[in-house]
């Protein structure tokens, strides 16, 4: 499984959504039924799973699945 697929797996588990819904442009709040607390918990799980750290400031910019994938790819490469 590559990094993108792993990220989507965590999202599917945490938000209880179908893999098919997890397109890069999917908005957590508008398309995946997540509220702000769901997003906070999701980010915590991402931090644990991928050994990265996401600041509150960076969290403000996370709206879509693509935002998360881009962030983690960058953080993991660093």
């Amino acid at each position, binding site marked *: 499984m590559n990094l993108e697929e792993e990220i989507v797996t965590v999202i599917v588990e945490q938000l*209880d959504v179908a893999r098919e819904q997890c397109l890069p442009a999917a908005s957590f709040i508008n398309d995946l039924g997540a509220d702000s607390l769901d997003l906070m*918990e999701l980010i*915590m799980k991402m931090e644990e799973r991928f050994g990265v750290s996401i600041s509150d400031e960076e969290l403000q910019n996370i709206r879509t699945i693509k935002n998360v994938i881009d962030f983690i790819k960058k953080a993991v490469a660093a």
Partner: protein
Amino acid sequence: MHRRVVITGLGAITPLGNTVADTWKRICAGSSGIDRITKFDNRAFATQIAGEVKNFDPLCFLTKKEVRRLDDFIIFALASAEMAIADAFLVITELSAMRAGVYIGSAIGGLGTLEKEKEKLLQAGPGKISPFMIPAVLANLAAGNVSIKLGFKGPINCSVTACASGSCAIGDAFRTIAEGHADIMIAGGADAAVTPMAVAGFNAMRALSTNNEHPEKASRPFDRSRDGFVIGEGCGLLVLEELDAAQQRGARIYAEIVGYGLTSDAYHLAAPPPGHAGAVRCMQLALADAGIAPSDVDYVNAHGTSTPLNDRYETEAIKTVFQEHSRALAVSSTKSMTGHMMGAAGGVEAIISVKAICEDTLPPTINLDNPDPDCDLDYVPHTARAKTVKVALSNTSGFGGVNAALVFKKFTGGA
């Protein structure tokens, strides 16, 4: 203003069953819901038994995401609320939602979640605490979650009066409708206190039965060899409605709620005084509120915790209130079967009292093999009994010296 209030729906999850029907069936069969504790490793504890909810699949009511973020006491409340509303065939409009409220009491709220998150704090640090922890722990979030789920925008509250929490919520809901502040209320109690801290804490007070070898016999109210209560968990909720509105929509009416009494012992944190004067006054106030004479009561669902002090003093209190009628009165403790469900007890026992009226059946006190000589009333030993029940009174008491009593009456229609 004093409008009449009736019960039009019931919903419950108990150690005896995950529906009101199942629970009532097992109450009438005199079954016990007490067994070895499975929710945590009980080996180091003095008490290793409890009344746990069994074979309950929360996914029948909630999504996986919801189940993960909620404490059990909230899950029990959401499931019970859904069942109660369906039972009442109640449909809310945008307008009626403004006058529909939720009062769900809880003695201890999300203690189980708090204990698990504390473990995480110690093992992994503050950064690992779930953003859902606080909403899962606060006691009023059973009412909060139910209000969100049902869309009820009227009065909302959570009574926290220890083991009387459920009764106080129902009594308050009764008054709220009677005084005209709402037309529909869902009310009762929820608790999921079968946790390491609760068991250890009650054990430290020597309040729990340690009859681990015979779980089904451990809760034995009024019996000579009773040695403390058995913790139970679950939820009991009633739908209360203003009478005219209920009749107008053709609601099925289970019973009428007619009286509520609430008093303090002002004596001791955890023990009642001999004679239990506070409970005497409480029952008298509830009956006066109902305009019903003690001699017209057919059944008392006792607090009956199976502790040495409560059962004796509650018996004395009942005799003081009912005088000669005590001989004819049927009194039973269904905690002999459900265990002590903490804040949920008042809710579930109100449901049982209502069912007793509807089904004209007296629930038994099981395990009453050798009644304490100081406990000499008709506790309906061992077996349920068919009998016309027109008026039932439900007693609960709680740490801090709280006493609450609710009076229910058979509804025969009309004015």
